[in-house]
């Protein structure tokens, strides 16, 4: 060690440095490095700005939404909607009468049915 230190001593003290270095020497280096490197992926995820994370998901999100929309459209197009005519509705509405049948029937009513309802009244 340098026995006469001054404020202007700008050189490292090799003896003190070596002693301190020995005193602070860490343990298993390989295990420590492995432990740090194991956190690489998590830290990189934390490093990415939020908009980048969202952008990373955007492509897959849009693709998934497109597929879902196509499937929904396909299912709707292929589903057989019950094509109930006014006649069937009229027959099934025992109490509602012709007005209900006209409102619930999906096909345009036959003129004779409309006439029949008027006669009925």
């Amino acid at each position, binding site marked *: *060690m*340098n*026995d006469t*230190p*001054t*404020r202007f*001593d*700008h050189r*490292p*003290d*090799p*003896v*003190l*440095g*070596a*002693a*301190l*270095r*020995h*005193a*602070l*020497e*860490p*343990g298993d*280096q*390989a295990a*420590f*490095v492995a*432990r*740090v*490197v194991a*956190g*690489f992926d*998590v*830290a*990189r995820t*934390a*490093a990415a700005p939020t908009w980048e994370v969202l952008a990373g998901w955007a492509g897959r999100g849009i693709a998934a939404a497109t597929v879902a929309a196509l499937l929904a459209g396909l299912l709707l197009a292929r589903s057989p909607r019950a094509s109930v005519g006014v006649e069937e509705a009229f027959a099934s509405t025992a109490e509602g009468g012709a007005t209900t049948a006209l409102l619930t029937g999906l096909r345009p009513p036959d003129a004779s049915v409309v006439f029949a309802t008027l006669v009925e009244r």
Partner: protein
Amino acid sequence: MPADPQPPGTGARIPDGDEARLVARTLAGDRAAFGTLVERYAAQARRVARAVLGDPDDADDAAQDGLLSALVKLAQYDPRRPFGPWLMRIVANAATDRRRRRTVRWTEQLDPGLAGGGPRPDADAERAALGERLRAALKQLTPRRRMAVVLFDVEGYAHGEIAEILGIPEGTVRSEVFHARRQLRALLQDWKEA
């Protein structure tokens, strides 16, 4: 894997080499490049953290926090500047934060015989005893003084770089190193005279 690129006792800092290239590769997602940076600076980071915290386990946790925090902030690193001081500042902050958060364990208790200038141990145990004594002597210094002397005399950083690492004026660094050396020498005086 090179355990430590700096030979003991030289006080020579890790030379700035291809860090900028390794940083660029790490930013591109290259885990091996990050591993190389960690291998290069792990021992230094652990020693600096231990200078602050004392306990080797606490120090390793802080060094790990610092290295991973540096990875998170890596895009902010200016490759035109030396990598070591930038990294050590983050590690020193991580260690200081950890120290503030909880009471730190100092596992090294100075042996009463050593503290009182008792009989010098056998030559075989001398080196280990000196290490124990130095760790206990370091405990007597403030954390900033410990970091200053370790960064200067052990890691070989210049006063200006230490000022950057610790976020204090260069003149204060010179003063901290001076006082740390004087205190350590006083604490170890009886060891020399034994």
